[in-house]
């Protein structure tokens, strides 16, 4: 019962955001960066549903466009993390012995870093930008994907059918993609969904600190930063981006829980 609720609500929230993002690609009530000083810091009204910011920009339009950044950062960093994890994990799993030990200790060391600290260290190297935010967050995810892939490789490596396939001359890479990956697909998807929500949280935090996505790219985190100056004058300013971050994270967390639950039932 509870299991299905996780999955259903998660899917519902995520697809809602996805639709919002698709819509924002083609239509927003106002041009998100259009400034109208006359309208600055006006509260929610019929013309501006969520009010306007300190430059008179429409908050609904800006929040909608923010979904694009959130999905882009989430998808790209998860892709980087998964690709890196696949490489590191399969290398560790196949190489065995000391190479495995070294790689796993290295992932341990990375995992010992609290996420945001590692992200801050990585973004401090280059000038802040969307690309560097994605890279930093993506690197952050490599260890957890690597662990999933490695355990999958170790589990399946000894399994009879893999040996049988190898006997027919299939290479490591072939075995990895044809035999192993399908078997650990659900763990990877669970990790991906969870990483997606983590990516959104960290991107928001970095952008809030001014070290993430830079203008003119839209970002909920930076909107929160801007809103804080006008907290007493325009309390609505902080609501839309905050609520959207919460919904996205909630949606992907629930989705991750739901997938995991579904797998546990089958097992």
């Amino acid at each position, binding site marked *: 019962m509870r299991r299905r609720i996780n999955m259903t609500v998660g899917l519902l929230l995520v697809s809602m955001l996805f639709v919002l993002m698709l819509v924002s690609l083609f239509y927003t009530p106002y041009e998100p960066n259009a400034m109208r000083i006359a309208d600055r810091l006006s509260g929610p009204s019929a013309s501006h549903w969520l009010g306007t910011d300190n430059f008179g920009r429409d908050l609904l339009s800006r929040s909608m466009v923010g979904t694009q950044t959130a999905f882009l950062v989430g998808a790209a960093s998860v892709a980087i993390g998964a690709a890196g994890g696949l490489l590191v994990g399969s290398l560790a799993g196949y190489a065995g012995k000391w190479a495995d030990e070294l790689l796993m*200790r290295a992932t341990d060391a990375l995992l010992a870093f*609290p*996420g945001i*600290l590692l992200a801050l260290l990585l973004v401090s190297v*280059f000038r802040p930008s969307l690309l560097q935010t994605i890279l930093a967050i993506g690197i952050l995810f490599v260890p957890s994907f690597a662990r999933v892939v490695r355990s999958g490789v170790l589990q399946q490596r000894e399994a009879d059918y893999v040996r049988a396939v190898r006997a027919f001359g299939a290479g490591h890479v072939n075995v990895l993609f044809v035999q192993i990956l399908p078997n650990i697909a659900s763990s990877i998807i669970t990790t991906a969904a969870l990483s997606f929500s983590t990516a959104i949280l960290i991107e928001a935090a970095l952008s809030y*600190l001014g070290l993430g996505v830079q203008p003119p790219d839209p970002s909920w985190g930076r909107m929160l930063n801007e809103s804080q100056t006008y907290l007493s004058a325009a309390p609505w300013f902080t609501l839309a981006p*905050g609520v959207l971050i*919460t919904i996205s994270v909630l949606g992907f967390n629930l989705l991750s829980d739901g997938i995991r639950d579904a797998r546990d039932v089958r097992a």
Partner: protein
Amino acid sequence: MNYYFRRLFTLALTVVLVLILTFSVFRVIPGDPALAILGVEASQEQIEMLSEKLGTDRPMAVQLLEWFRGAATLDLGTSLRYSEPVSDLIASRLPVTLILALESVAIVIAFSIPLGIAAARRPGKAADLAVSVLTQLGLAVPSFWMGILLLLLFGLTLNWVPVSTYVGWDENPWLALRSTFLPAAALAIPQIAIVVRYLRTSLLEQLNLDYVRTARSKGLGDRAVLYGHALRNSLLPVATVIGIQFGELLAGSLVIEQVFSLPGFGSLLISAIGNRDYPLVQGLVLFIAASVIVVNFLVDLSYRWLDPKIKLR
């Protein structure tokens, strides 16, 4: 003994890897670090001076050895911006961040235990469902936005706490406590959610064990069984989770300090990153990461020591 030895070895190895990581991050930048700091308009002379100051004019291996030696003797170099030893800067900001994190731990303990018990007492019933919805929300709300909301509600609307006026602990502990309560609470909320989930699972697991039936067969009531037997045993693993969260709280405070303008590690690190003050960034990140690793190590050790079941294993 073997276990402790192995654990100590992994600890050392992890610290070394962290040292290498913090060292190499600023050396992999294409080109001269000094150039990256000063920008293209800098004169050759300026760049050479800075290179000497940073030590980047020497061979990489020497630099790495220097970095190791410095870390061992708590000499993390000199800040470019403040012209002060990095370790002194860390020491001056430590109290704010440390106490913020400790206050959060206290809040986590105070709220998560009653909530976890409420959820586990009648699994699947109203209280359990309410707690599960709250924990999902607690995990989803970014703590810095929670901080902004708390600030809006308690600071600006209700005027219960001073807004953005940090008072040092040495000046007025009571005011200091009040001015850090909101950030500590914002920081604690996601961690409360994690602990509640953990405690609920752990408690339900314990309540299903045979010894609980024995305790009931002695004539103990539900409360005595819960508080005297099951809770005690489920708190041990939960305590380690709280211990491990200390690192997360330290890191989380980096962001939350910005929301409340607290002069801790957060503002130091953010401004250091903005100023390209590499020695300071490097030293500060190393310090925080090393503290997290050491705290986790100590938590693990104390768990081994406290848990009578695995004492001998």
